[in-house]
Protein backbone atom coordinates (compact mmCIF):
# COMPACT_ATOMS: atom_id res chain seq x y z
CA UNK A 1 0.00 0.00 0.00
CA UNK A 2 2.98 2.27 -0.18
CA UNK A 3 3.61 5.06 -2.58
CA UNK A 4 6.80 4.48 -4.48
CA UNK A 5 9.45 7.13 -3.99
CA UNK A 6 9.18 9.86 -6.54
CA UNK A 7 10.83 8.74 -9.70
CA UNK A 8 13.11 10.96 -11.67
CA UNK A 9 11.24 10.98 -14.93
CA UNK A 10 12.32 14.55 -15.37
CA UNK A 11 13.71 17.12 -13.02
CA UNK A 12 11.54 19.76 -11.52
CA UNK A 13 8.12 20.53 -12.78
CA UNK A 14 6.88 20.90 -16.31
CA UNK A 15 3.55 22.39 -15.42
CA UNK A 16 3.18 25.58 -17.42
CA UNK A 17 2.88 28.89 -15.64
CA UNK A 18 0.81 31.00 -15.06
CA UNK A 19 -2.03 28.87 -16.33
CA UNK A 20 -1.35 25.14 -15.82
CA UNK A 21 -3.51 24.11 -18.73
CA UNK A 22 -2.24 26.45 -21.39
CA UNK A 23 1.15 25.95 -22.92
CA UNK A 24 2.32 29.27 -24.29
CA UNK A 25 4.85 29.48 -27.06
CA UNK A 26 8.29 30.09 -25.63
CA UNK A 27 9.84 32.93 -27.65
CA UNK A 28 13.33 31.70 -26.81
CA UNK A 29 12.83 28.30 -28.34
CA UNK A 30 10.67 29.15 -31.31
CA UNK A 31 10.61 32.07 -33.69
CA UNK A 32 7.18 33.58 -33.46
CA UNK A 33 6.94 34.05 -37.21
CA UNK A 34 7.26 30.31 -37.70
CA UNK A 35 4.31 29.47 -35.52
CA UNK A 36 1.23 28.07 -37.25
CA UNK A 37 -1.94 27.85 -35.20
CA UNK A 38 -3.86 24.72 -36.10
CA UNK A 39 -7.24 23.76 -34.79
CA UNK A 40 -7.77 20.07 -34.08
CA UNK A 41 -11.45 20.80 -34.15
CA UNK A 42 -14.23 19.15 -32.29
CA UNK A 43 -14.81 16.78 -35.18
CA UNK A 44 -11.62 14.91 -35.93
CA UNK A 45 -10.52 11.40 -36.82
CA UNK A 46 -9.42 10.57 -33.31
CA UNK A 47 -12.22 8.71 -31.72
CA UNK A 48 -12.07 10.36 -28.36
CA UNK A 49 -15.03 12.50 -29.06
CA UNK A 50 -15.48 16.19 -29.29
CA UNK A 51 -12.24 17.53 -27.90
CA UNK A 52 -10.84 20.64 -29.48
CA UNK A 53 -7.12 21.28 -29.28
CA UNK A 54 -5.76 24.60 -30.43
CA UNK A 55 -2.16 23.77 -31.21
CA UNK A 56 0.67 26.17 -32.07
CA UNK A 57 3.06 24.36 -34.36
CA UNK A 58 6.64 25.19 -35.18
CA UNK A 59 7.10 22.94 -38.16
CA UNK A 60 6.00 19.60 -36.76
CA UNK A 61 6.82 20.37 -33.14
CA UNK A 62 4.13 21.36 -30.72
CA UNK A 63 5.08 24.76 -29.33
CA UNK A 64 1.83 25.67 -27.62
CA UNK A 65 -1.43 23.97 -26.84
CA UNK A 66 -4.78 24.80 -25.35
CA UNK A 67 -7.62 22.33 -24.86
CA UNK A 68 -11.17 23.60 -25.37
CA UNK A 69 -13.94 21.42 -24.02
CA UNK A 70 -17.63 21.87 -23.54
CA UNK A 71 -18.83 20.55 -26.87
CA UNK A 72 -20.68 17.76 -25.12
CA UNK A 73 -21.89 19.60 -22.03
CA UNK A 74 -25.23 17.97 -21.47
CA UNK A 75 -26.36 19.56 -18.25
CA UNK A 76 -26.57 16.25 -16.42
CA UNK A 77 -26.34 17.84 -13.05
CA UNK A 78 -29.16 20.25 -13.69
CA UNK A 79 -31.37 17.56 -15.21
CA UNK A 80 -30.81 15.26 -12.26
CA UNK A 81 -31.95 17.97 -9.87
CA UNK A 82 -35.35 17.94 -11.54
CA UNK A 83 -35.98 14.20 -11.43
CA UNK A 84 -36.80 11.89 -8.59
CA UNK A 85 -34.00 9.78 -7.15
CA UNK A 86 -35.14 6.73 -9.08
CA UNK A 87 -35.22 8.52 -12.42
CA UNK A 88 -31.98 10.38 -11.87
CA UNK A 89 -30.07 7.09 -11.79
CA UNK A 90 -30.87 6.74 -15.50
CA UNK A 91 -28.81 9.83 -16.29
CA UNK A 92 -25.69 8.66 -14.56
CA UNK A 93 -24.39 5.97 -16.95
CA UNK A 94 -24.50 8.33 -19.91
CA UNK A 95 -21.89 10.58 -18.37
CA UNK A 96 -18.87 8.35 -18.91
CA UNK A 97 -20.47 6.30 -21.60
CA UNK A 98 -17.61 3.85 -21.99
CA UNK A 99 -17.58 2.76 -18.37
CA UNK A 100 -21.26 3.15 -17.83
CA UNK A 101 -21.61 0.77 -14.94
CA UNK A 102 -19.00 2.67 -12.95
CA UNK A 103 -21.06 5.85 -13.08
CA UNK A 104 -24.30 4.14 -12.10
CA UNK A 105 -22.53 2.36 -9.29
CA UNK A 106 -20.95 5.57 -8.06
CA UNK A 107 -24.20 7.50 -7.95
CA UNK A 108 -26.12 4.70 -6.28
CA UNK A 109 -23.34 4.24 -3.72
CA UNK A 110 -23.63 7.92 -2.87
CA UNK A 111 -27.40 7.66 -2.43
CA UNK A 112 -27.02 4.55 -0.32
CA UNK A 113 -24.45 6.30 1.86
CA UNK A 114 -26.94 9.06 2.59
CA UNK A 115 -29.72 6.58 3.18
CA UNK A 116 -27.64 4.33 5.39
CA UNK A 117 -29.17 1.32 3.71
CA UNK A 118 -27.48 -2.05 3.86
CA UNK A 119 -27.00 -3.82 0.58
CA UNK A 120 -27.16 -7.63 0.53
CA UNK A 121 -23.90 -9.31 -0.30
CA UNK A 122 -25.15 -10.96 -3.46
CA UNK A 123 -25.80 -7.50 -4.88
CA UNK A 124 -22.40 -6.25 -3.75
CA UNK A 125 -20.56 -9.09 -5.42
CA UNK A 126 -22.62 -8.81 -8.59
CA UNK A 127 -21.91 -5.09 -8.74
CA UNK A 128 -18.24 -5.84 -8.30
CA UNK A 129 -18.22 -8.41 -11.08
CA UNK A 130 -20.02 -5.98 -13.38
CA UNK A 131 -17.65 -3.17 -12.46
CA UNK A 132 -14.64 -5.27 -13.35
CA UNK A 133 -16.23 -6.46 -16.60
CA UNK A 134 -16.86 -2.81 -17.35
CA UNK A 135 -13.22 -2.06 -16.63
CA UNK A 136 -12.16 -4.67 -19.17
CA UNK A 137 -14.69 -3.20 -21.62
CA UNK A 138 -13.34 0.31 -21.15
CA UNK A 139 -9.74 -0.78 -21.54
CA UNK A 140 -10.61 -2.72 -24.69
CA UNK A 141 -12.25 0.35 -26.20
CA UNK A 142 -9.24 2.42 -25.18
CA UNK A 143 -6.79 -0.06 -26.66
CA UNK A 144 -8.77 -0.50 -29.85
CA UNK A 145 -9.13 3.21 -30.49
CA UNK A 146 -5.62 4.19 -29.39
CA UNK A 147 -4.05 1.53 -31.54
CA UNK A 148 -6.30 2.63 -34.41
CA UNK A 149 -5.03 6.19 -34.07
CA UNK A 150 -1.42 5.08 -34.07
CA UNK A 151 -1.90 2.91 -37.13
CA UNK A 152 -2.31 -0.56 -35.60
CA UNK A 153 -5.70 -0.80 -37.21
CA UNK A 154 -6.23 -4.54 -36.87
CA UNK A 155 -6.29 -4.27 -33.12
CA UNK A 156 -9.54 -2.34 -33.41
CA UNK A 157 -11.34 -5.40 -34.71
CA UNK A 158 -9.79 -7.76 -32.21
CA UNK A 159 -10.62 -5.57 -29.24
CA UNK A 160 -14.15 -4.84 -30.34
CA UNK A 161 -14.83 -8.51 -30.87
CA UNK A 162 -13.90 -9.22 -27.26
CA UNK A 163 -15.90 -6.22 -26.24
CA UNK A 164 -18.97 -7.68 -27.90
CA UNK A 165 -18.60 -10.73 -25.69
CA UNK A 166 -18.62 -8.54 -22.60
CA UNK A 167 -21.66 -6.69 -23.88
CA UNK A 168 -23.38 -10.05 -24.36
CA UNK A 169 -22.85 -10.68 -20.67
CA UNK A 170 -24.26 -7.28 -19.80
CA UNK A 171 -27.21 -7.95 -22.02
CA UNK A 172 -27.82 -11.27 -20.35
CA UNK A 173 -27.96 -9.67 -16.92
CA UNK A 174 -29.29 -6.22 -17.58
CA UNK A 175 -31.32 -6.54 -20.75
CA UNK A 176 -29.40 -4.13 -22.93
CA UNK A 177 -25.83 -3.90 -24.13
CA UNK A 178 -24.89 -0.47 -22.83
CA UNK A 179 -26.41 1.74 -20.16
CA UNK A 180 -27.98 -1.21 -18.45
CA UNK A 181 -29.23 0.67 -15.39
CA UNK A 182 -28.71 -2.60 -13.61
CA UNK A 183 -27.69 -0.97 -10.34
CA UNK A 184 -30.61 0.01 -8.19
CA UNK A 185 -30.70 1.80 -4.85
CA UNK A 186 -30.55 -1.03 -2.37
CA UNK A 187 -28.99 -3.65 -4.60
CA UNK A 188 -29.38 -4.63 -8.19
CA UNK A 189 -32.50 -4.41 -10.30
CA UNK A 190 -32.95 -8.10 -10.92
CA UNK A 191 -31.24 -11.30 -10.04
CA UNK A 192 -28.58 -12.70 -12.33
CA UNK A 193 -29.90 -15.21 -14.87
CA UNK A 194 -29.04 -18.82 -14.04
CA UNK A 195 -26.38 -19.37 -16.70
CA UNK A 196 -24.65 -16.05 -16.21
CA UNK A 197 -21.77 -17.43 -14.15
CA UNK A 198 -21.05 -20.23 -16.62
CA UNK A 199 -21.06 -17.84 -19.58
CA UNK A 200 -18.90 -15.39 -17.69
CA UNK A 201 -16.47 -18.15 -16.83
CA UNK A 202 -16.11 -19.00 -20.50
CA UNK A 203 -15.31 -15.38 -21.12
CA UNK A 204 -12.75 -15.41 -18.31
CA UNK A 205 -11.06 -18.38 -19.96
CA UNK A 206 -10.74 -16.66 -23.28
CA UNK A 207 -9.90 -13.14 -22.13
CA UNK A 208 -6.35 -13.69 -20.84
CA UNK A 209 -5.53 -15.41 -24.12
CA UNK A 210 -6.81 -12.35 -25.95
CA UNK A 211 -4.66 -10.08 -23.83
CA UNK A 212 -1.70 -12.28 -24.66
CA UNK A 213 -2.55 -11.89 -28.33
CA UNK A 214 -2.67 -8.11 -28.09
CA UNK A 215 0.63 -8.03 -26.32
CA UNK A 216 2.13 -10.31 -28.93
CA UNK A 217 1.01 -7.88 -31.60
CA UNK A 218 2.20 -4.72 -29.90
CA UNK A 219 4.90 -5.42 -27.37
CA UNK A 220 7.71 -6.21 -29.74
CA UNK A 221 6.45 -4.13 -32.61
CA UNK A 222 9.20 -1.66 -33.40
CA UNK A 223 6.79 0.97 -34.62
CA UNK A 224 4.64 0.76 -31.52
CA UNK A 225 7.66 0.96 -29.24
CA UNK A 226 9.11 3.85 -31.20
CA UNK A 227 5.83 5.76 -31.02
CA UNK A 228 5.02 5.17 -27.39
CA UNK A 229 8.25 4.97 -25.43
CA UNK A 230 9.50 8.25 -24.11
CA UNK A 231 6.42 10.08 -25.34
CA UNK A 232 4.12 12.12 -23.13
CA UNK A 233 6.25 12.16 -20.00
CA UNK A 234 4.68 13.03 -16.69
CA UNK A 235 6.47 12.83 -13.36
CA UNK A 236 4.80 11.64 -10.18
CA UNK A 237 4.92 15.05 -8.48
CA UNK A 238 3.35 16.72 -11.45
CA UNK A 239 0.76 13.98 -11.70
CA UNK A 240 -0.35 14.44 -8.11
CA UNK A 241 -0.31 18.21 -8.45
CA UNK A 242 -2.53 17.94 -11.51
CA UNK A 243 -4.93 15.54 -9.74
CA UNK A 244 -4.24 12.65 -12.10
CA UNK A 245 -5.52 9.29 -11.01
CA UNK A 246 -6.00 5.82 -12.39
CA UNK A 247 -3.62 4.52 -15.06
CA UNK A 248 -2.19 8.01 -15.62
CA UNK A 249 -1.01 8.13 -12.02
CA UNK A 250 0.06 4.51 -11.81
CA UNK A 251 2.26 4.90 -14.88
CA UNK A 252 4.30 7.56 -13.12
CA UNK A 253 5.30 5.34 -10.23
CA UNK A 254 2.69 6.29 -7.64
CA UNK A 255 1.18 3.13 -6.21
CA UNK A 256 -2.37 4.32 -5.61
CA UNK A 257 -5.58 2.49 -6.32
CA UNK A 258 -8.83 3.32 -4.57
CA UNK A 259 -9.95 -0.28 -4.74
CA UNK A 260 -7.09 -1.35 -2.54
CA UNK A 261 -6.32 1.74 -0.50
CA UNK A 262 -9.83 2.98 0.29
CA UNK A 263 -11.91 -0.08 -0.52
CA UNK A 264 -15.56 0.07 -1.39
CA UNK A 265 -17.98 -2.76 -2.24
CA UNK A 266 -16.07 -5.94 -1.33
CA UNK A 267 -12.68 -5.14 -2.81
CA UNK A 268 -10.98 -5.89 0.49
CA UNK A 269 -12.13 -9.50 0.19
CA UNK A 270 -10.65 -10.23 -3.22
CA UNK A 271 -7.06 -10.72 -4.18
CA UNK A 272 -5.65 -8.62 -6.95
CA UNK A 273 -2.46 -6.80 -7.74
CA UNK A 274 -2.16 -3.20 -8.79
CA UNK A 275 0.20 -2.67 -11.73
CA UNK A 276 2.55 0.26 -11.30
CA UNK A 277 5.19 1.36 -13.76
CA UNK A 278 7.79 4.08 -13.39
CA UNK A 279 8.40 5.35 -16.90
CA UNK A 280 5.69 8.00 -17.03
CA UNK A 281 5.25 7.64 -20.78
CA UNK A 282 2.58 6.33 -23.11
CA UNK A 283 4.15 2.88 -23.18
CA UNK A 284 3.83 2.51 -19.45
CA UNK A 285 0.23 3.61 -19.53
CA UNK A 286 -0.38 0.95 -22.16
CA UNK A 287 1.27 -1.63 -19.92
CA UNK A 288 -0.86 -0.54 -16.96
CA UNK A 289 -4.00 -0.96 -19.04
CA UNK A 290 -3.00 -4.43 -20.20
CA UNK A 291 -2.09 -5.63 -16.74
CA UNK A 292 -5.28 -4.18 -15.34
CA UNK A 293 -7.27 -6.22 -17.82
CA UNK A 294 -5.64 -9.37 -16.51
CA UNK A 295 -6.22 -8.38 -12.90
CA UNK A 296 -9.84 -7.62 -13.63
CA UNK A 297 -10.32 -11.10 -15.06
CA UNK A 298 -8.85 -12.44 -11.84
CA UNK A 299 -11.29 -10.42 -9.77
CA UNK A 300 -14.23 -11.49 -11.94
CA UNK A 301 -13.32 -15.15 -11.44
CA UNK A 302 -13.29 -14.70 -7.69
CA UNK A 303 -16.60 -12.87 -7.80
CA UNK A 304 -18.17 -15.63 -9.87
CA UNK A 305 -17.03 -18.26 -7.40
CA UNK A 306 -18.55 -16.34 -4.52
CA UNK A 307 -21.73 -15.66 -6.49
CA UNK A 308 -22.20 -19.37 -7.06
CA UNK A 309 -22.08 -19.89 -3.32
CA UNK A 310 -24.66 -17.17 -2.78
CA UNK A 311 -27.14 -18.56 -5.21
CA UNK A 312 -30.69 -17.93 -4.05
CA UNK A 313 -29.90 -15.07 -1.71
CA UNK A 314 -31.74 -11.75 -1.98
CA UNK A 315 -30.34 -9.32 -4.49
CA UNK A 316 -31.86 -6.13 -3.18
CA UNK A 317 -32.40 -4.71 0.28
CA UNK A 318 -35.58 -5.36 2.14
CA UNK A 319 -36.43 -1.80 3.12
CA UNK A 320 -39.84 -1.15 1.64
CA UNK A 321 -39.53 2.59 2.03
CA UNK A 322 -36.87 2.62 -0.65
CA UNK A 323 -37.13 -0.59 -2.59
CA UNK A 324 -40.19 -1.74 -4.47
CA UNK A 325 -41.86 -4.76 -2.90
CA UNK A 326 -42.00 -7.94 -4.99
CA UNK A 327 -44.97 -7.90 -7.28
CA UNK A 328 -46.67 -11.00 -5.95
CA UNK A 329 -47.07 -9.29 -2.61
CA UNK A 330 -49.12 -6.51 -4.12
CA UNK A 331 -52.09 -8.83 -4.42
CA UNK A 332 -52.20 -9.74 -0.77
CA UNK A 333 -50.58 -7.04 1.34
CA UNK A 334 -52.07 -3.56 1.73
CA UNK A 335 -48.86 -2.13 3.11
CA UNK A 336 -46.92 -3.35 0.11
CA UNK A 337 -49.43 -1.72 -2.19
CA UNK A 338 -49.12 1.59 -0.40
CA UNK A 339 -45.34 1.40 -0.38
CA UNK A 340 -45.35 0.60 -4.09
CA UNK A 341 -47.65 3.53 -4.76
CA UNK A 342 -45.58 5.97 -2.74
CA UNK A 343 -42.32 4.89 -4.26
CA UNK A 344 -43.56 4.94 -7.83
CA UNK A 345 -45.43 8.23 -7.69
CA UNK A 346 -43.45 10.45 -5.41
CA UNK A 347 -40.31 8.45 -5.01
CA UNK A 348 -38.47 7.64 -1.85
CA UNK A 349 -36.87 10.33 0.23
CA UNK A 350 -33.26 10.52 1.22
CA UNK A 351 -32.20 12.15 4.50
CA UNK A 352 -30.67 15.62 4.30
CA UNK A 353 -26.90 15.81 4.16
CA UNK A 354 -23.93 15.88 1.84
CA UNK A 355 -21.57 13.11 0.91
CA UNK A 356 -18.64 12.62 -1.39
CA UNK A 357 -18.13 9.10 -2.67
CA UNK A 358 -15.31 8.09 -4.99
CA UNK A 359 -14.65 4.88 -6.85
CA UNK A 360 -11.85 3.69 -9.06
CA UNK A 361 -13.33 3.90 -12.50
CA UNK A 362 -11.24 2.70 -15.43
CA UNK A 363 -10.14 6.30 -15.95
CA UNK A 364 -9.25 7.10 -12.39
CA UNK A 365 -11.02 8.58 -9.43
CA UNK A 366 -14.64 9.12 -10.29
CA UNK A 367 -16.38 10.96 -7.51
CA UNK A 368 -19.89 12.10 -6.73
CA UNK A 369 -20.72 14.97 -4.40
CA UNK A 370 -24.33 14.61 -3.45
CA UNK A 371 -26.41 17.06 -1.43
CA UNK A 372 -29.89 16.11 -0.35
CA UNK A 373 -32.47 18.29 1.37
CA UNK A 374 -34.45 15.34 2.62
CA UNK A 375 -36.79 15.42 -0.32
CA UNK A 376 -37.71 13.22 -3.23
CA UNK A 377 -35.19 14.83 -5.59
CA UNK A 378 -31.47 15.47 -5.38
CA UNK A 379 -30.56 19.02 -4.42
CA UNK A 380 -27.12 19.07 -5.98
CA UNK A 381 -25.21 16.37 -7.78
CA UNK A 382 -21.68 17.01 -8.87
CA UNK A 383 -19.61 14.39 -10.59
CA UNK A 384 -15.85 14.54 -10.28
CA UNK A 385 -14.92 13.38 -13.72
CA UNK A 386 -11.55 11.69 -14.15
CA UNK A 387 -11.36 12.74 -17.80
CA UNK A 388 -11.85 16.38 -16.82
CA UNK A 389 -8.80 16.16 -14.58
CA UNK A 390 -6.83 14.12 -17.11
CA UNK A 391 -7.29 16.71 -19.83
CA UNK A 392 -5.75 19.34 -17.58
CA UNK A 393 -2.47 17.47 -17.97
CA UNK A 394 -2.46 17.93 -21.75
CA UNK A 395 -0.29 21.04 -21.65
CA UNK A 396 2.25 19.34 -19.41
CA UNK A 397 2.74 16.13 -21.33
CA UNK A 398 2.94 17.47 -24.88
CA UNK A 399 5.96 19.66 -24.40
CA UNK A 400 8.44 19.11 -27.16
CA UNK A 401 6.39 16.50 -28.97
CA UNK A 402 5.70 16.18 -32.67
CA UNK A 403 2.16 16.12 -34.00
CA UNK A 404 2.17 12.36 -34.32
CA UNK A 405 3.27 12.05 -30.71
CA UNK A 406 0.54 14.47 -29.73
CA UNK A 407 -2.00 11.94 -30.96
CA UNK A 408 -0.36 9.18 -28.93
CA UNK A 409 -0.15 11.31 -25.80
CA UNK A 410 -3.69 12.59 -26.14
CA UNK A 411 -4.94 9.05 -26.54
CA UNK A 412 -3.06 7.84 -23.50
CA UNK A 413 -4.91 10.34 -21.31
CA UNK A 414 -7.99 8.25 -22.05
CA UNK A 415 -10.45 11.12 -22.15
CA UNK A 416 -14.12 10.43 -22.65
CA UNK A 417 -15.75 13.72 -23.52
CA UNK A 418 -19.08 12.85 -21.98
CA UNK A 419 -17.21 12.50 -18.71
CA UNK A 420 -15.15 15.65 -19.16
CA UNK A 421 -18.06 17.86 -20.16
CA UNK A 422 -20.93 16.27 -18.27
Amino acid sequence: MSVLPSTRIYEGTRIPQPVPTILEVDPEKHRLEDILRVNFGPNHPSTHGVLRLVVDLDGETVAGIRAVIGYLHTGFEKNMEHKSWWKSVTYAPRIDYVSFHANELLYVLAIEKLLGIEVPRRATWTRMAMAELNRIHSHLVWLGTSALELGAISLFWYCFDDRDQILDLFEMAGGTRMHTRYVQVGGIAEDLPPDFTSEARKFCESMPKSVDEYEAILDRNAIWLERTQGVGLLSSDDALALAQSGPMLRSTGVDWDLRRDMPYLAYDEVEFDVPVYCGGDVYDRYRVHMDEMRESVRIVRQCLDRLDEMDGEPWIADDRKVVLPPRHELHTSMESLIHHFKIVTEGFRVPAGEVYVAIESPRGENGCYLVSDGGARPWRVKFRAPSFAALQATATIVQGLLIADLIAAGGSLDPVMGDADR
Partner: protein
Amino acid sequence: MTAYASVPGVVETRESFGETTLVVDPARLVEACTALRDEHGFNFLSDIAAADYLGWGEQEVAGYIGTNAGRDIHVPGSQGLARVPPPKPKRFSVSYHLLRVNDDPARLRVQVWLDDGESVASVLPVWPAADWFEREAFDMMGIRFEGHANLMRILMPEDWEGHPLRKDYPLGGEPVRFSDED
Protein backbone atom coordinates in the same frame (compact mmCIF):
# COMPACT_ATOMS: atom_id res chain seq x y z
CA MET B 1 -11.52 16.39 14.82
CA THR B 2 -8.67 17.77 16.89
CA ALA B 3 -6.33 16.57 14.16
CA TYR B 4 -7.22 19.66 12.14
CA ALA B 5 -7.21 22.13 15.00
CA SER B 6 -3.94 23.64 13.84
CA VAL B 7 -5.30 24.62 10.42
CA PRO B 8 -5.67 28.41 10.25
CA GLY B 9 -9.02 29.92 9.44
CA VAL B 10 -11.26 27.03 10.44
CA VAL B 11 -14.62 28.29 11.63
CA GLU B 12 -16.38 24.99 12.21
CA THR B 13 -15.67 21.29 11.99
CA ARG B 14 -18.43 18.84 11.13
CA GLU B 15 -18.50 15.08 11.00
CA SER B 16 -21.29 13.29 9.22
CA PHE B 17 -21.65 10.05 7.27
CA GLY B 18 -18.03 9.29 8.18
CA GLU B 19 -16.70 12.42 6.49
CA THR B 20 -14.99 15.43 8.02
CA THR B 21 -15.86 18.90 6.80
CA LEU B 22 -13.84 21.96 7.76
CA VAL B 23 -15.72 25.19 7.25
CA VAL B 24 -13.13 27.85 6.58
CA ASP B 25 -13.28 31.63 6.50
CA PRO B 26 -13.07 32.61 2.81
CA ALA B 27 -10.46 35.28 3.53
CA ARG B 28 -8.03 32.68 4.90
CA LEU B 29 -8.70 29.92 2.41
CA VAL B 30 -5.30 29.83 0.72
CA GLU B 31 -3.59 29.84 4.10
CA ALA B 32 -5.69 26.91 5.27
CA CYS B 33 -5.16 24.96 2.07
CA THR B 34 -1.42 25.51 2.14
CA ALA B 35 -1.29 24.27 5.72
CA LEU B 36 -3.34 21.23 4.81
CA ARG B 37 -1.11 20.44 1.87
CA ASP B 38 2.20 20.98 3.63
CA GLU B 39 1.60 19.94 7.20
CA HIS B 40 -1.19 17.42 6.85
CA GLY B 41 -0.11 15.90 3.55
CA PHE B 42 -3.22 16.51 1.43
CA ASN B 43 -1.42 16.52 -1.85
CA PHE B 44 -4.36 15.67 -4.11
CA LEU B 45 -7.23 17.98 -4.87
CA SER B 46 -10.05 15.67 -5.90
CA ASP B 47 -12.76 18.12 -6.70
CA ILE B 48 -14.08 21.64 -6.26
CA ALA B 49 -17.86 21.53 -6.04
CA ALA B 50 -20.02 24.60 -5.81
CA ALA B 51 -23.61 24.35 -4.63
CA ASP B 52 -26.44 26.86 -4.70
CA TYR B 53 -28.82 26.82 -1.74
CA LEU B 54 -31.38 29.32 -3.00
CA GLY B 55 -34.73 28.01 -1.90
CA TRP B 56 -33.30 25.59 0.63
CA GLY B 57 -35.82 24.56 3.20
CA GLU B 58 -38.80 26.18 1.57
CA GLN B 59 -40.33 22.87 0.67
CA GLU B 60 -41.30 20.92 3.70
CA VAL B 61 -40.56 17.28 3.81
CA ALA B 62 -43.51 15.29 5.01
CA GLY B 63 -43.76 11.64 5.67
CA TYR B 64 -41.23 8.96 6.38
CA ILE B 65 -37.67 9.72 5.50
CA GLY B 66 -35.81 6.92 3.80
CA THR B 67 -34.89 3.98 5.90
CA ASN B 68 -34.99 2.76 9.45
CA ALA B 69 -32.23 5.22 10.26
CA GLY B 70 -34.63 8.06 9.56
CA ARG B 71 -37.39 6.85 11.79
CA ASP B 72 -36.91 6.72 15.52
CA ILE B 73 -40.10 6.41 17.50
CA HIS B 74 -38.38 7.88 20.52
CA VAL B 75 -37.45 11.10 18.71
CA PRO B 76 -40.50 13.29 18.36
CA GLY B 77 -40.96 14.78 14.94
CA SER B 78 -39.08 12.13 13.03
CA GLN B 79 -42.14 10.26 11.86
CA GLY B 80 -44.92 11.54 9.77
CA LEU B 81 -44.54 15.22 10.52
CA ALA B 82 -43.32 17.92 8.21
CA ARG B 83 -39.64 18.54 8.69
CA VAL B 84 -37.50 21.23 7.23
CA PRO B 85 -33.75 20.78 6.91
CA PRO B 86 -31.60 23.19 8.96
CA PRO B 87 -30.95 26.45 7.12
CA LYS B 88 -27.65 27.21 5.43
CA PRO B 89 -25.49 30.23 6.37
CA LYS B 90 -25.20 31.76 2.89
CA ARG B 91 -26.34 31.10 -0.63
CA PHE B 92 -23.33 29.39 -2.15
CA SER B 93 -20.99 26.81 -0.75
CA VAL B 94 -17.75 25.84 -2.43
CA SER B 95 -16.44 22.49 -1.25
CA TYR B 96 -12.86 21.48 -1.85
CA HIS B 97 -12.51 17.71 -1.63
CA LEU B 98 -8.99 16.80 -0.62
CA LEU B 99 -7.28 13.46 -0.59
CA ARG B 100 -4.10 12.38 1.07
CA VAL B 101 -2.26 10.02 -1.27
CA ASN B 102 0.26 8.21 0.87
CA ASP B 103 0.43 5.37 3.33
CA ASP B 104 -2.21 6.95 5.57
CA PRO B 105 -4.97 7.86 3.15
CA ALA B 106 -7.66 10.23 4.26
CA ARG B 107 -10.33 12.40 2.74
CA LEU B 108 -11.31 15.86 3.85
CA ARG B 109 -13.75 18.49 2.71
CA VAL B 110 -12.92 22.17 3.06
CA GLN B 111 -15.96 24.35 2.67
CA VAL B 112 -16.40 28.09 2.27
CA TRP B 113 -19.69 29.93 2.22
CA LEU B 114 -20.32 32.87 -0.06
CA ASP B 115 -23.11 35.18 -0.99
CA ASP B 116 -24.02 36.15 -4.52
CA GLY B 117 -21.34 38.47 -5.81
CA GLU B 118 -18.73 37.53 -3.24
CA SER B 119 -15.51 36.14 -4.55
CA VAL B 120 -12.97 33.85 -3.00
CA ALA B 121 -9.23 33.46 -3.52
CA SER B 122 -8.14 30.89 -6.03
CA VAL B 123 -6.22 27.88 -4.74
CA LEU B 124 -4.31 27.61 -7.99
CA PRO B 125 -0.98 28.38 -6.25
CA VAL B 126 -1.60 25.47 -3.88
CA TRP B 127 -2.79 22.82 -6.34
CA PRO B 128 -2.45 23.47 -10.10
CA ALA B 129 -5.30 21.04 -10.59
CA ALA B 130 -7.70 23.72 -9.40
CA ASP B 131 -7.52 25.45 -12.77
CA TRP B 132 -10.41 23.88 -14.62
CA PHE B 133 -12.41 23.05 -11.51
CA GLU B 134 -12.58 26.74 -10.62
CA ARG B 135 -13.40 27.68 -14.18
CA GLU B 136 -16.27 25.23 -14.06
CA ALA B 137 -17.54 26.65 -10.77
CA PHE B 138 -17.41 30.10 -12.31
CA ASP B 139 -19.14 28.98 -15.49
CA MET B 140 -21.90 27.05 -13.79
CA MET B 141 -22.48 29.08 -10.63
CA GLY B 142 -20.98 32.48 -11.27
CA ILE B 143 -18.52 32.38 -8.37
CA ARG B 144 -15.44 34.46 -9.08
CA PHE B 145 -12.03 33.24 -8.01
CA GLU B 146 -9.52 36.01 -7.35
CA GLY B 147 -6.09 35.35 -8.69
CA HIS B 148 -7.09 32.80 -11.29
CA ALA B 149 -5.16 33.77 -14.38
CA ASN B 150 -7.68 32.46 -16.89
CA LEU B 151 -11.19 32.62 -15.45
CA MET B 152 -13.15 32.00 -18.63
CA ARG B 153 -16.15 29.87 -19.40
CA ILE B 154 -15.22 26.31 -19.97
CA LEU B 155 -18.34 24.21 -20.60
CA MET B 156 -20.75 26.72 -22.05
CA PRO B 157 -19.97 28.72 -25.21
CA GLU B 158 -17.89 31.74 -24.38
CA ASP B 159 -20.60 34.25 -25.14
CA TRP B 160 -23.25 32.52 -23.03
CA GLU B 161 -25.14 34.68 -20.57
CA GLY B 162 -26.17 33.42 -17.21
CA HIS B 163 -24.88 30.68 -14.99
CA PRO B 164 -26.80 27.50 -15.71
CA LEU B 165 -26.57 25.54 -12.47
CA ARG B 166 -27.97 28.32 -10.32
CA LYS B 167 -31.36 27.56 -8.88
CA ASP B 168 -32.94 30.63 -10.48
CA TYR B 169 -31.75 29.60 -13.94
CA PRO B 170 -34.47 27.66 -15.76
CA LEU B 171 -33.91 24.12 -16.93
CA GLY B 172 -34.65 25.26 -20.46
CA GLY B 173 -35.51 22.95 -23.26
CA GLU B 174 -38.71 22.85 -25.23
CA PRO B 175 -42.25 21.85 -24.38
CA VAL B 176 -42.86 18.37 -25.75
CA ARG B 177 -45.86 17.73 -27.95
CA PHE B 178 -47.25 14.27 -27.49
CA SER B 179 -50.43 14.20 -29.54
CA ASP B 180 -50.88 14.50 -33.23
CA GLU B 181 -52.18 18.04 -33.30
CA ASP B 182 -50.60 20.62 -35.56
